[in-house]
Every structure is written in structure tokens, then in C-alpha cells.
């Protein structure tokens, strides 16, 4: 019964409604930013910015192309952050929705190892060491509403529903888009619950749009070891 997003970047106009709706619903403060010569603002995800429309300008086939990528947590099916934390009070999965959720107890974790475990470079740390990221608007989803970013999207870029439905929608859109963009693809469909449709090489959109091969091939040695030791560790605790 896991929920999933389908983010169709071919429809995105970078209006940033999702970004603002996310801030609005979560009562997050604004960032103080400076003009860096791009409309992408703020520059990066932060402790109080869970959603960010990344914008890149690329010359593709001698034509200026503006690529938009509404970046957010992917709510991984096997979440490396959750496995690295090994503390369900700090990072846990909501079994009903599949959302990966962070609590205030993330303060007790080693923030750097959690952040570096994320193949998509999503979690961000506050000064006091608490870590935050997108929570899939779990409160809304439990009450039959769509996440704030999806509800507000005027173009149909952001979609949310049962994982199977989103996969089907993704495949349907991919087939349609392929006619015009032969290199179009869905990103990391088997690993994540936030499925992106892109028309060009994912690295042009964002360095971490897709999980790097090194991370994709498996979890880090440290996490693998811990996973192996888990049955023993829980025995030890008894």
C-alpha cells in the first residue's frame, strides 16, 4: 500500500508553487538569499527548505534548453538514511504510506553520516544537529489529502497516489514523451517512491537527480556490516 509521487518534468514551468506550498503547510521560515544570476532560489535545500525547483540552462542541439527539476526526498524503498541511523525513534518508516520520517531525535544521530548516506543528497542539518527533509505531508496523506506540493501544482507535473498507479502513469507518459524526446527516461523506479520523468541525461538536471552508480550497487560497507549484525545486536539487547 505504499504511496508514490510521479514528477513529470516535461510539464514543469518552474512556477515554484510546490516550493511555496511546502513552506506554507510546514510553517517554515523564508531564507535570506542574494542574486546569483539564476531564478533558482534558494540556492540549495536547507533545514527549512524541503522542496526546491532546480533550474539549469543547457545548450542542447544548438538550442538553449531550460531544465527544471523539482527536487525533494525520494522516500526510498530501502532507505539508506534509515538503515544508517538504526534508531527508529529518530528515523522511521510509516508503514501505511511508505514515508521516511525524521523526528527531533535526529539530533542524537551523527548528522554527517546520515547526510552522506543519502544517494540523492537530501537531508539537511540545523545548527543544533537536528536533521530534516520532506515528510511526504504524512499528516495530509493520512487524512485523505494530497501532499501540499501536489495539491498546488497547476501544470500536472506533481502527481501522488498508490505506487502502482504512479508507475503506470509514469510508463504511459514515458511512451508519449519518447516520440519527441528519444532519450527520455524514468529515474530509479525500482528504488524510490518519487519517480521522475526526464527528457535528457539526468546529470544535466542535477548532480544527484539519479543515485550515483557507486551508491546504487549497494549500501556502504558500514551499513552492510550493521545489517548483518542486526539479529545479533537485538539479541544482545535482550
Amino acid at each position, binding site marked *: 500500500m505504499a504511496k508514490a509521487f510521479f514528477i513529470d518534468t516535461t510539464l514543469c514551468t518552474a*512556477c*515554484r*508553487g510546490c*516550493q*511555496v*506550498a511546502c513552506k*506554507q*503547510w*510546514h*510553517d*517554515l*521560515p523564508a531564507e535570506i538569499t542574494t542574486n546569483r544570476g539564476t531564478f533558482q532560489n534558494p540556492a540549495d535545500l536547507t*533545514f*527549512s527548505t524541503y522542496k526546491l525547483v532546480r533550474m539549469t540552462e543547457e545548450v542542447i542541439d544548438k538550442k538553449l534548453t531550460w531544465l527544471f527539476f523539482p527536487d525533494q526526498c525520494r522516500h526510498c524503498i530501502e532507505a539508506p538514511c534509515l538503515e544508517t541511523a538504526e534508531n527508529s*525513534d529518530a528515523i*522511521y518508516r510509516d508503514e501505511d504510506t511508505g514515508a521516511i*520520517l*525524521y*523526528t*527531533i*531525535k*535526529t539530533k542524537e544521530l551523527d548528522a554527517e553520516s546520515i547526510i552522506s548516506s543519502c544517494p540523492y543528497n537530501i537531508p539537511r542539518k*540545523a545548527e543544533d544537529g*537536528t*536533521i*530534516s*527533509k520532506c*515528510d511526504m505531508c*504524512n*499528516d*495530509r496523506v*493520512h*487524512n485523505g*489529502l494530497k501532499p*501540499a506540493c501536489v*495539491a*498546488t*501544482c*497547476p501544470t500536472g507535473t506533481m502527481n501522488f497516489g498508490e505506487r502502482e498507479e504512479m508507475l503506470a502513469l509514469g510508463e504511459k507518459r514515458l511512451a508519449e514523451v519518447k516520440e519527441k524526446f528519444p532519450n527520455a527516461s524514468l529515474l530509479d523506479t525500482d528504488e524510490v517512491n518519487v519517480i521522475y520523468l526526464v527528457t535528457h541525461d539526468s546529470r544535466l538536471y542535477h548532480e544527484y537527480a539519479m543515485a550515483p552508480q557507486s551508491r546504487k550497487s549497494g549500501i556502504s560497507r558500514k551499513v552492510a556490516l550493521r545489517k548483518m549484525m542486526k539479529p545479533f545486536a537485538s539479541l544482545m539487547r535482550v
Partner: protein
Amino acid sequence: MNLNRREFIQVSGATAAGLAVSTLGFDLKPVKSHAQMLKTKYAKETTTICCYCAVGCGAIVHTSKRGDGRVINIEGDPDHVINRGALCSKGASIKQLTENENRLTRPMYRAPYSTKWEEVSWDWALEKIAERVKKTRDDGFEKTNSKGQVVNRTTSIASVGSAAMDNEECWIYQALLRSLGLVYIEHQARI
């Protein structure tokens, strides 16, 4: 902790981290179930129209039923024919029209050549505006054009706006501007 609804929302919602990392205690079980509770659960719902562009998107305003009745949330109205729940970045931010510490609540005046703004009363401001409109209009008023034809116009004032007005307000506004003799009347949705 003994909290009313509003304070409860502030505690749970206004922490920099939002619901995801907020807590009202140190036992995590209530936090986890609290994280599933909607902040708009006990709020009153009112519909409104976004004040920005001329599209006229519908929105739902959630206000606190108790105490000060302040705004908890504003989001797109899924039943509205224009936007069907969608809002752009400006529309998604309209809660800040009321819930914003930087919002001006009194008219401000900066005198010519002055470098600072000062607070003035509504009466003073309205009086001053009327006075200046009258003076500018009278000074630049043309009864006839160069060919001697009667025009009764002023080209000293122009009007741009307003997308936030409805049909009836536009009529009153148009009548006001025409009675002053304005000919430069434009609507920003066309610009």
C-alpha cells in the same frame, strides 16, 4: 503543557522544523501519532479568491475557531472551476497577507526628499491623496485640444490596475477615473 488550540498550532507548526521534527514531549509514540493529525482539523473553512493576477483562482482559508481566529492555512480550492485546487507560488503564499510580522498595519509616509518613512493616520493619508490628485488633475487639465475641440481630459495622471477588483468595483473605479478626466487607464493583466 496547557495549550489552547492556537498556541498548540504555534508550538507544533511554527518550530523551524515543522511537524516532522517537532515534539511535545520525549516519548516518541505521541509524536508519531501527532504527526498524522491535520493542523486544519478543527479549523473553520472559508472560500476566497486569490488577490494577485486576473486568473482569479479560488482558495480555502482555514482559520482558528477559538481565540483570535487567525489564519492557520490557505490552499487552493479543489472545487473551484478556475484552478481546481492549484495555486502558483504567489497564490500559495497568500497566507502571508495576514500572518506576516513584516506586514504594514498603518499607512506610511515618506515626505519629499526625506530618507525615512513615518507612520501617519488614515485620515491624514486619505486627505493628502485627495489633495494631491485634485492639484495634479487641475494643473494638467485640458478643456480643448490644439484644434479647439472639447476634450476635458488630464494626461498628468495614469492608472494601472487592478487585478484584485471584481466587476462592480471596476465599474466604480472606471467611473471615478473618467470623471476626473483620465485617459491613460490600463489594467495590469494586459501588460
